């Protein structure tokens, strides 16, 4: 069941009606868990089985780590829990990738009977809930968090359907207090949630799915397209991924808000970043902050004895993990490696940049930074989009400004540009003037609601209603 389906909208409307009729907070939580499990069940049985098993095991692991903290048993439980969660993720997501590469490697030595791949179905949301649970366990181990004893609260944290499929990777500290409250109908929640939903659907249906038509058709026959077409396609893909994932996150946050929950912000106008460091503070914030807290920081501390090199190693490892988190493909590894290289170069040139800032006007420096960051992200996302390293390199090699630009249907191209223009106007106004272009200050609800009604009209007019699923559902 996809968020951008009519079926889901009916499903969610029914959920809200029942949810707010339930008077007791325990029953409310139980209802939400049941709803989330139904949501998983709609995908496949395996996903349901895996998530239930993992959630129940980790509930007990959390309590076990806390109660046996000061002895060997506590340490054993902690490492066992970490091992089980990582193994679960590895088995479903990376096992076949590992075996395929191992077979290829053994093939070099004429090794016969290579191990067979399992072709397992990837349980939905596995990368997202595994990282959530790992964060929860580490926080308990580091005594930053008390384990949740109320199983309904804990299960709600793992299962909560708005964030289950593609995040945000929510922190337990943020979620638990909210899950313990009784939820009542609040006009402000519905209003804020509704606005997020409309804006999310706009990003997904008007921008991402429209651009996808062009990008998919170019990638389908990339060898037949000119250099300029591949260049335009690569630039458009940056907007597609942004609108797709940011749109999904806004829909997820909107759904959660209507149910009385505040999920963390996942995107803060990333295409207006002045550097790659800045970009990762704005893009997929729940993942980048997770990696920062649980991988980069501990590694930097571990390697601090070797100075700057230690920081570079920590950065590299962190971003390889970010890359491979997205999927079991070498293209994602290269995506991560590229981010690592860009960040290391930025760190190494930081002093020079500061010196330069004293000589060159800030607007030139910022403009150049903005452009450079966009170019580097565009290059990285070629690997992100390509089905294989070979294709990514072929696309990359073929890009130039020559040849005839493939426009598809001219109107399709224009629809994409209209969407991008609205998205960028929104982001630029918010970034520079700290003002949301869709928010009118007025005492009249009609005036405040009008921009959002217009967004719905634009969705109906130029949205793509038969588009595919969200890109990040694959992760």
């Amino acid at each position, binding site marked *: 069941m996809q968020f951008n389906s*009519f*079926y889901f909208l009916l499903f969610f409307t029914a959920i809200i009606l029942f949810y707010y009729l339930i008077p007791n907070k325990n029953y409310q939580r139980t209802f939400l868990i049941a709803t989330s499990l139904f949501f998983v069940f709609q995908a496949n049985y395996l996903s349901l089985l895996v998530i239930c098993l993992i959630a129940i095991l980790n509930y007990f692991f959390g309590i076990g780590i806390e109660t046996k903290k000061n002895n060997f048993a506590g340490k054993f439980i902690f490492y066992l829990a970490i091992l089980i969660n990582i193994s679960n993720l590895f088995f479903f997501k990376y096992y076949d990738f590992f075996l395929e590469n191992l077979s290829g490697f053994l093939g070099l030595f004429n090794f016969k009977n290579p191990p067979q791949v399992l072709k397992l179905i990837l349980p939905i949301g596995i990368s997202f809930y595994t990282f959530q649970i790992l964060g929860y366990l580490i926080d308990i181990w580091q005594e930053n968090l008390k384990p949740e004893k109320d199983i309904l609260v804990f299960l709600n944290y793992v299962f909560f359907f708005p964030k289950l499929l593609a995040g945000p990777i929510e922190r337990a500290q943020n979620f638990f207090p909210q899950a313990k409250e009784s939820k*009542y*109908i*609040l*006009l402000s929640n*519905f*209003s804020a949630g509704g606005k997020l939903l409309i804006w999310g659907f706009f990003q997904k249906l008007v921008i991402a799915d429209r651009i996808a038509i062009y990008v998919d058709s170019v990638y389908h026959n990339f*060898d*037949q397209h000119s250099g300029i077409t591949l260049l335009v396609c690569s630039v458009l893909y940056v907007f597609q991924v942004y609108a797709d994932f940011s749109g999904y996150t806004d829909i997820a946050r909107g759904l959660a808000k209507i149910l009385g929950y505040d999920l963390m912000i996942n995107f803060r106008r990333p295409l207006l970043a002045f550097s790659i460091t800045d970009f990762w503070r704005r893009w997929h914030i729940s993942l980048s902050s997770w990696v920062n807290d649980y991988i980069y920081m501990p590694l930097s501390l571990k390697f601090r004895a070797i100075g700057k090199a230690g920081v570079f190693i920590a950065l590299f490892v962190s971003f390889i993990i970010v890359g491979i988190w997205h999927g079991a493909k070498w293209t994602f590894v290269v995506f991560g490696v590229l981010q690592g290289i860009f960040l290391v170069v930025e760190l190494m040139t930081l002093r020079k940049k500061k010196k330069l800032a004293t000589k060159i006007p800030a607007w030139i420096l910022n403009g150049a930074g903005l452009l450079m960051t966009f170019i580097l992200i565009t290059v990285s996302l070629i690997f992100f989009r390509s089905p294989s390293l070979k294709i990514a390199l072929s696309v990359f090699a073929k890009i130039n400004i020559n040849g005839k630009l493939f426009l598809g*249907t*001219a*109107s399709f191209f*224009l*629809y994409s540009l209209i969407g991008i223009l609205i998205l960028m106007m929104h982001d630029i106004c918010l970034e520079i003037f700290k003002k949301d272009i869709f928010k009118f200050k007025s005492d009249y*609800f*009609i005036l405040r*609601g*009008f921009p*959002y*009604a*217009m967004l*719905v*009209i634009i969705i*109906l*007019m*130029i*949205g*793509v*209603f*038969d588009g595919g699923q969200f890109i990040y559902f694959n992760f």
Partner: protein
Amino acid sequence: MQIERNKFQSIQLFYRIFIFGLMLFILDYLVGSGLSWIYKIQKNGVFYHTTYGLERTVANILIFGSSSANHHYIPEIISNQLKMSVYNQGHDGINILYQWALLKGILKRYKPKIILLNLTPNELSLQDNYDSLSVLSPYYKKHTEMRDIINLRSKFEPIKHLSAIYPYNSTILTMLPNLISKKGVRSTNGYYPIYGSAKKMKIKMRNFKNNTNLDPFLIEALDNFMKKCKQDDIALYLVFSPWFSFEIFETATIIKVNELALKYKVPVYNFIKDPEFNGQDDIYQDSGHLNHSGALMFSKRIAKEISISLRN
């Protein structure tokens, strides 16, 4: 206290949902009516031709099919040869469901004497979705006979069509140029020529595949199409128009079409195997589409074949 607060918030919420819904309804009605008006006053372009074919033409011969029909059959050439009026109903990117819906709509108004139904080698292949039927959405309200076919897109189509804008989704930028400028009117009686040859443009030609999984809905639509023509005494010709092929073989679609043709005693003309057209990249724009030169050759040929058939 909490109950009172809840009650107040609920009333406020329903009031706002009602106001927002009303605002949406009015905006949807206004914008939708505008789009409907623009759609109706089209003087050329693909929407004009679909409406003309469905609601106005009284041509003796109708040509049905997807892009290969639209770009391969020149009505004037066929008309000169057969001394009958011809209209090309072909439409890019659609399948037999569209043809069946359109035929139902046309037969409510008049009966053509001859129908040429152009098919592609994988016309009946299993479809992931029927989204190409969206081109019929502007006729959903008026042509009730088409609804059961348009509803195949999804079970929520009747609800979605409550919106006045939805039937015109993604049409505005195609419609506006046809209002402002008459430049680019290249079609005559529905035919749209395509120029440039694969040879000159160095386009890599691809052979068709044999998609063995056939779609039961598409088979049913073709069966209904043929049955209806038989019932209404319309002479139906099934045509597989030329294809640039490296290797000639029978697809599951071709086998099924031959089977249905035998059932309804309908002639099938298969030009995929024809040496006059096969493998000549100067008369193709791409693997499945003849350019204007190719269309000229093909129109003469099909007109001759039909002429012979009519004489017999």
